[in-house]
């Protein structure tokens, strides 16, 4: 196998100059394929040069205009349907952790993959990609939701919060602090989903929602009366294979009195 190998960088540069490498996302300017890029660099490239230019240039000008979806969708006020291009990319503006990200993605791209593969927001994890594990849980307009079963294109105008957007600067959110204190994780892979889920769940309790284990659904628990059984049921949408469940319950119990 050795003989057919030339230096990967060199080969890549050649093919680029021939124009037969199609890149989705930022065209790498640094020819080192293994270089880890800082998150800031990555974002800058993706948003400025990558998605916008590369993809928009694939669309005829009039369609590119129709495909754009500005925040709040004023363009749709007069049209009952907005039409996008088959197999092409659509422009989406996502608000994630308070920052706006403009990107072009195919309609089939999920919110999870848009964040992880295009925006370098890798806190939300892919555990199953089918809504069966909860590792991709984020908050959409404050409500917990599965980003693997959400199309990115359906999320524009919504406020998305991932685990990266929960702490106030260096100050951890009480749920995060409680997770550390109670040892509510081991490998940590499900943790970002667990934390988003816990925050969304405490808000649901504060809003007076019942759960499957609430004895009388017309009399749901309050944050003060939330039992361990309630926490367990309400956190059951997040699998933890290390099985830190008892400590997750302890962490939620600890955090529930502090802030929602």
């Amino acid at each position, binding site marked *: 196998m050795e003989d057919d190998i030339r230096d990967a960088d060199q080969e890549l540069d050649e093919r680029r100059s021939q124009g037969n490498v199609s890149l989705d996302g930022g065209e790498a300017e640094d020819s080192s394929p293994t270089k880890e890029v800082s998150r800031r660099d990555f974002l800058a490239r993706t948003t400025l040069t990558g998605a916008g230019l590369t993809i928009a240039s694939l669309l005829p000008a009039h369609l590119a205009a129709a495909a754009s979806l500005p925040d709040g*969708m004023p363009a*749709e006020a007069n*049209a*009952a*349907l*907005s*039409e*996008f*291009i*088959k*197999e092409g990319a*659509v422009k989406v503006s996502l608000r994630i952790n308070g920052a706006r990200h403009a990107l072009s993605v*195919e*309609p*089939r791209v*999920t919110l999870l993959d848009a964040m992880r593969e295009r925006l370098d927001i890798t806190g939300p994890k892919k555990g199953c*990609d*089918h*809504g069966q594990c*909860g590792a991709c*849980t984020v908050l959409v307009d404050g*409500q*917990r*939701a*599965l980003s693997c*079963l*959400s*199309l990115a*294109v*359906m999320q524009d105008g919504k406020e998305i919060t991932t685990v990266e957007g929960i702490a106030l600067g260096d100050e951890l959110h009480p749920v995060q602090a409680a997770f550390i204190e109670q040892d509510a994780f081991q490998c940590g892979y499900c943790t970002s989903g667990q934390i988003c*889920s816990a925050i*969304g*769940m405490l808000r*649901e309790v504060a*809003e*007076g*929602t*019942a*759960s*499957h284990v*609430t004895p009388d*659904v*017309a009399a*749901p628990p309050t944050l003060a009366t939330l039992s361990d059984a309630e926490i*367990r*049921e*309400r956190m*059951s*949408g*997040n699998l933890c294979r290390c099985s830190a469940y008892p400590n997750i319950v302890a962490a939620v119990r600890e955090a529930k009195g502090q802030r929602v």
Partner: protein
Amino acid sequence: MKPFVYSRATEAAAAVRQVSNERSAKFIAGGTNLLDLMKSGVELPDRLVDIARLPLAEITALPQGGVRIGAMARNSTAANHPLVRERYPVLTQAFLAGATGQIRNMASVGGNLMQRTRCPYFYDPAMRCNKREPGSGCSAVEGFNRIHAVLGASEQCIAVHPSDMCVALAALDAVVRVQGPEGEREIPFDDFHRLPGDTPQQDTNLRHGELITAVDLPALPFAKRSHYLKVRDRASYEFALVSVAAVLDVSGGRVRDARVALGGVAHKPWRAREAEKILTGARANEETYRKAAEAALSGARAYKHNTFKIELAKRAIVRALSTAGGSGA
């Protein structure tokens, strides 16, 4: 997932028009089941029409004491709406027994009605399935059929409907309101989902392009005395092996009226009218409940791995009725 065109609707009529005009177009609201199926290669739409932002999420009181739930209402919202949980606690319980907090926040009521079976043979295009590919054969009949139907199945398909919500709606005599290219119509709940027969590919009697706009719940004053019981292997986050929605009107030690529906046993939410007949007018006690349970499962037929469901369903009916009957029993 294969590529598709995405459009977003801001008016129901436009959405209906768009989907009616294209054979392989589909509505998408919460997406919790549709995207799962698209990723699995089971659903292959060429176009998705996003109806999630249509103004169809309201939950309102109806004049004669009923409640209308907009099709775009989220499962979590509908479950916890005061009108629902006070008038139809069995529906709230059914909602909350299904899926998880995250999924209930995403899934719409209309989408829940349109859920497709979780039969593993349906879910994997590498295996034969009449529902997915009519005429290819049913792998479950001779295969692993622990979760499959014991009532109303056909040799073509022994899949079960997975919804909890729908079991309660069946018991409550809900009416599904739909809007199609030719206007609006109402479908009684019992007529909404189908038994497999020779056309297992058709889950419902909805026509292509018809959009569910709301679910109406007729007034049922005794619905406060009700119980939704779900039996499953795992304590949460699992579809029912068997579930029971029981609504009882008991006074003076007798059952005045009853509604019983079963989940996890048939291709559609199964209204147990034979059980209701036995219950109505009989003494509200365990013996009556047992007779009702026997009647409900009298036509049951099991397959290799799901024999247990018949006995389990009977016991679940007795328990659900006993619980719903409460002190009046």
